[in-house]
């Protein structure tokens, strides 16, 4: 009987090269292992498959940088909210319906003319999920995790951000307990804009400190 050998090439090859068997496309090895864990835990009554689907739906479709952008735009336009956010970000964003699933604490760090803030998780990939969704691959890569601390200005330049030499750079290392949201600088020329119009120009990268908010040409 034909037996598919799972090697590193096969792991990355999806779908598998077609042979003359009319069978289903074999998922890569780790996908089969995840299915095995699900099967075992479901049989033990430890997981609810519907809950897994709901979590995936939440992070694929509902939670994303639009949440963080709504927070930032509000902070730019409502001085009271801005003060509350800087004093206790966890409480301020939960009032908007954004809660951390792991009970983590949120801290807002604000960019000014003097200071630019940037966020990393050097150990794994802690990230403010409720506000920004699932981190992009670059945030999870060894390259970013190591270099954001060692040579942050070089990393920023690769994102197209060049800061004046006199601007101080602060790099915040996230943990399982504390996550950071960067409040970028509001660009000139946006006076009188609505909160929604402002939110539309606030990017994920800007809220990690790897981008600036600019007015689209």
């Amino acid at each position, binding site marked *: 009987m*034909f037996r*598919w050998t799972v090697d590193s090439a096969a*792991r*990355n090859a*999806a779908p598998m090269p077609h042979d003359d*068997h*009319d*069978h*289903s*496309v*074999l*998922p*890569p*090895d*780790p*996908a*089969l*292992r*995840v*299915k*095995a*864990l*699900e*099967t*075992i*835990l479901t049989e*033990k009554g*430890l*997981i*609810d498959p519907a*809950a*897994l*689907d709901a*979590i*995936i739906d939440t*992070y*694929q479709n509902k939670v*994303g940088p639009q949440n963080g952008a709504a927070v930032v735009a509000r902070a730019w336009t409502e001085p009271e909210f801005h003060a509350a956010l800087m004093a206790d970000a966890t409480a301020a964003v939960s009032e908007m319906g954004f809660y951390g*699933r*792991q*009970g*983590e604490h949120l801290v807002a760090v604000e960019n000014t003319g003097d200071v630019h803030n940037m966020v990393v998780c050097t*150990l*794994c*990939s*802690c990230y403010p999920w409720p506000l920004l*969704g*699932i981190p*992009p*691959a*670059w*945030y*999870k*890569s*060894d*390259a*970013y995790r190591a270099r954001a601390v060692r040579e942050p200005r070089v990393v920023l330049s690769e994102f197209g951000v060049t800061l004046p030499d006199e601007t101080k750079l602060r790099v915040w290392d996230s*943990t*399982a*307990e504390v996550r950071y949201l960067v409040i970028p600088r509001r660009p000139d020329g946006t006076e009188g804009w609505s909160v929604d119009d402002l939110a539309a120009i606030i990017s994920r990268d800007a809220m990690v400190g790897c981008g600036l908010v600019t007015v689209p040409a």
Partner: protein
Amino acid sequence: MKRPEPAFAEPWHAQLFALTVHLNETGLFDWPHWADRFSATLKRHGVARELNGGDDYFNAWLETLEAVLSEQSLADPAQVDRIRNAWEQAYMTTPHGAPVRLI
């Protein structure tokens, strides 16, 4: 306007993420403990080469979850291998287009 990037590059990344979050929420382990363990795996894997934020990252995640579940006697490695192979057989013997199920 640019289309947003998908949250997960592969379906199994999403499944694995959801499984772990669900187990945390049901109280099987707390998140700081998970982050410690996962960080240690990433560190170990990252000694020999630079890991990417895609399959490398989630392979380390899977290894960590398998280890945590094994230690808690919830899924022993031999059982995981056996059921993984059963799933492979199910895929190999299910006609294309039909739902794949364990027999």
